[in-house]
């Protein structure tokens, strides 16, 4: 496989052609916030937290969906990037109802931890707080759209890994919603295998196991790589 060289934060590094910029950045041990991206799923490019500056271009690029290119010069940190990332997190928090104290994911939530890391201690925008009904019709899982950030990880895992395509999104703009089946109660959807993959990949408290308390609700993403490694590379990890 061919190798490209690029400059990340003033350091000359090499990466594999076709690799995403995000993974090249992570290979350098650089921390960069992400929400919609998850190893094992196709890239989405929706949350825009992973954006970086490309020197010589006014436009910012989302590193998860940008392939590395020879001679690229990028910066992963700057005042502007931090300010924008904060604003994006604030927008996400303002969009639905994120009252962490009453959320099952409190303490284990990716949105919460990104907010904490970026130092988002208040939201400068109006809380929109739409009144969205919870769906507890599923035998094992609960969907609370009030905590959803529309990252579509659940939609992608259900389609691409489980192969059920039970979940999808409907509507556009701020009216977008994650739905099950043909916008029916989740529990009545006959395609759902109840595998629970969607719950495990959801970064927030939008999807959780029925009956779980805040302390118990812990999400494991590693399973995705175990499954995919086993399926595609025949590497099984039994630990």
């Amino acid at each position, binding site marked *: 496989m061919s190798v490209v060289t690029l400059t990340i934060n003033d350091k000359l590094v090499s990466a594999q052609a076709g690799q995403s910029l995000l993974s090249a950045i992570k290979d350098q041990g650089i921390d960069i916030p992400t929400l919609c991206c998850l190893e094992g799923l196709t890239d989405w*490019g929706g949350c*825009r937290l992973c954006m970086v500056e490309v020197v010589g271009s006014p436009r910012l690029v*989302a590193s998860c*969906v940008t392939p590395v290119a020879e001679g690229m010069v990028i910066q992963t940190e700057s005042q502007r990037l931090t300010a924008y990332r904060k*604003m*994006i997190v604030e*927008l996400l928090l303002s*969009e639905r109802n994120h009252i962490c104290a009453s959320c099952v994911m409190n303490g284990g939530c990716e949105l919460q931890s990104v907010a904490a890391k970026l130092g988002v201690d208040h939201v400068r925008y109006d809380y929109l707080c739409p009144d969205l009904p919870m769906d507890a019709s599923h035998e094992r899982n609960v969907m609370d759209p009030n905590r959803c950030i529309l990252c579509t990880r659940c939609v992608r895992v259900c389609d691409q890994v489980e192969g059920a395509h039970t979940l999808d*999104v409907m509507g556009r*703009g701020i009216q977008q919603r994650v739905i099950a089946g043909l916008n029916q109660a989740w529990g009545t959807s006959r395609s759902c295998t109840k595998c629970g993959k969607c719950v495990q990949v959801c970064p927030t408290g939008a999807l959780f196991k029925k009956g779980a308390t805040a302390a118990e609700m812990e999400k494991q993403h590693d399973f995705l790589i175990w499954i995919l490694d086993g399926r595609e590379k025949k590497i099984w990890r039994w630990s």
Partner: protein
Amino acid sequence: MNRTELYAMAQAELDRQQKFRCRLLCCASTPCISSGGTAVYEAVKQAIEAEGLQAEVEAVATGCVGPCSRGPLITVKMEGREDVVYEQVTPEMAARILDKHLRSKPVALDDKMLPADWPFFVKQKKIVLADSGTVDPEKLESYVARGGYTALGHALREMTPEEVCEEIARSGIRGRGGAGYPSGLKWHMVRKAPGEKKYVVANGDEGDPGAYMDRTLMESDPHRVLEGMAIAGYAVGADQGYIYVRGEYPLAAKRLEKAIRAAERRGLLGSRVLDSNFSFRIDIRMGAGAFVCGEETALMASIMGRRGQPVPRPPYPANKGLWGGPTLINNVETFGNIAAIIGNGAEWYASFGTEKSKGAKIFALAGKVNNTGLIEVPIGITLREIVYDIGGGIPGGRAFKAAQTGGPSGGCIPAEYLDTPIDYETLQKLGSIMGSGGLIVMDDQSCMPDVAKFFMEFCMDESCGKCTPCRVGTVQMHRMLDKITNGTATMDDLKRLEELCLMVKESSLCGLGQTAPNPIYSTLRYFRDEYEAHIKDHHCPAGVCQFGAKAV
């Protein structure tokens, strides 16, 4: 059919038309239909029959003539005389028009007659719309009689695909869908891209509020678009084309469908076009009413039957488009120029326009201006000529305040720039864009923050919702503008608004979010005092905004 048969078809139709002493061209485009054009056309046909004039007079339902607000329009064409155009024709007037022109009776119709030297017509340069208003869009022969499909024949027989791309490049034409990307460059890229199966897509989604250039072209002269697409197919090596028509345009789709069928029947589309080795099919795809589906990656997703949502570029459609094949996407107006360029040569085309922006551009002239309608003007014309000469000035003699171009991605040009030439670069420098061609004139009774709010509401409703800055940012920007226009905002809100604008512009995934803040930017740039008057003085200088609660 081959080229000889094509010429024969043209001659036969011309001979047929010559037999009539008079031809009455009735506009059958959507604006005229909505003001009663269908009844007028029927009345004209009835009057011809009632007077037994079928052998001498022909009534033709044509495409758009231009001054849409004055419809229904009828053009009287008589051998050896200048054309006469009547405005606001009623069914009752049909018989009187016949009396006046064929029976030479003294009928008082002068007040409905548009002057032949009317600046609205004289100042225009019609390239794409050259035949709109004279050809019958539902009749292939009518287009062929005007020289239709000869450019395609010329390209197929006398030019290599590379030469066709080169000719387009030399003409200097830039995409008419908004961004103004050089079309020749794009064609070369698709031609050179490796791939077995390539595609040509005509973008007829046209979601911008107030714009109807593309609809009119598809309705008025569908074959011109098809011919342009076929030439493009030959040039880039594609054998399949799609024309993506906005769902709200059923008449355009119907006429295109009819045109495709007619062209296929005569061997002008389909397999072995004009008896050459080139085959080209065109299929119609109907949109379901999402503005974002005009964005090229979303458009392709929609054509492939998926959710119409943008994906990041690269890869560009020219390399990896529909089903992974190289795909040429152009606006329908861009395709409308192609036959004229190939037919008359690149030099001819490049003689219109400015140094860097060639040709003519269609605008939908709307707002506070006396003559609204569709115009095609040489690029480089000044705004003053458009508003005061073609548009006939502002009703009530009020003062010109600004012109908004480029729709929700655009901005406004204030009065001090009335004399600057309209081209891609100048508009960009002024903080607006050429866009697809919406041009809204505003007088001193327009409130600029309110205008910005209108466009933001559009973007908010039309955001696809995939990326955070656009999905939530547009809603928050709209709320801040709402506060400004209802008098509850503070200067702090304005600062927050500006910060948000910049973030949404620089972080959004596709053009919709990247340009959504433009109307705010440009109104702030020229009319910041109006924003401040709303916030600080609790006063709307234009007298538009109603203030409820007092600011706290």
